[in-house]
């Protein structure tokens, strides 16, 4: 059951990230996808991969994107 | 000389559109060479279909020849499609990917 919930979170937040007008929100939603994928890795019996993905996908990648947004422009237009 | 004039005019318009500069003989002869090379090599590679089916090869070659020759000059049209903007490149890459995947998944055993 857990994997269904995670699948919905992943797909919905991925789509929401791509239709956001505000790029900062898109960065945060990318973090949601990354975190949900990390939990999915844990469900798939890969705790080491889950740890790495939790750090990279849920923290580092959104921070990179947020930094890039801060240095450029926030709205999509 | 009709072909030469026709291509000369096209090259002139083309230069006006994309990169301004004088139109020289070398440009036009390059375009004509490219034109003839393109037509002949495409038709020649269509003949390779004879290893699949002789009738199909003849038909495809004939149709290709008619289509290509009636559409002279090809190179300007061709070059617009091959410019280096990201949109066109990604579009062609994804289209190629989907053609390869669909062709191999459903038709890979037919060859």
């Amino acid at each position, binding site marked *: 059951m857990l994997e269904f919930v995670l*699948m919905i979170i992943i797909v919905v937040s*991925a789509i929401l*990230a*791509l239709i956001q007008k505000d790029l900062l929100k898109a960065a945060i939603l*990318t973090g949601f996808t990354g975190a949900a994928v990390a939990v999915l890795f844990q469900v*798939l019996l890969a705790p080491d991969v889950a740890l790495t993905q939790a750090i990279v996908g849920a923290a580092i990648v959104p921070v990179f*994107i947020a930094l890039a947004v801060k*240095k*450029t422009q926030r709205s999509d237009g | 000389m009709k072909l030469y004039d026709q291509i000369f005019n096209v090259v002139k318009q083309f230069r006006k559109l994309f990169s301004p500069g004088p139109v020289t003989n070398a440009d036009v002869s390059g375009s004509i060479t490219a034109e003839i090379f393109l037509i002949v090599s495409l038709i020649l590679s269509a003949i390779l279909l004879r290893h699949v089916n002789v009738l199909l090869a003849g038909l495809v070659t004939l149709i290709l020849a008619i289509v290509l020759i009636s559409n002279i000059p090809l190179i300007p049209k061709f070059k617009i499609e091959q410019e280096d*903007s990201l949109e066109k490149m990604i579009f062609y890459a994804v289209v190629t990917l989907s053609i390869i995947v669909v062709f191999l998944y459903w038709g890979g055993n037919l060859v």
Partner: protein
Amino acid sequence: MAQTQLVILFTSAALIIIGLYSAIFIDNIIKKIIGISFIEEGANLFIVAIGYKPGGVVPILMPGMDTSWFAANAAYPLPFGLVLTSIVIGASTLAVMLALVMVLYRRYGTLSTKVMLADTSKQEEYNE
């Protein structure tokens, strides 16, 4: 095939398709990069799903475990090791792309792909 694996495969397929869609149709370069990073994530998810064994255990040999029972029940750890490398590569690629975007934004003042990454001759016109 177990239900879990099927769900994972659907998820990774959805991520890859979302990524390819965004690569073609989204104009904003940062969103395009976000979308492309989903392709990488989908591929990783697929490879981890290969190693999964329904009803198995985590492939770490604890003291007191029977070795033959462990060999029969543990998940296959090779794909997990591969995905670790792949995640890090994906993050570094993303970082390089974003750095290039930041440099280019200073020159063009916009994030639109149609302006920033157009044909070179058109860029010359834009700069004039």
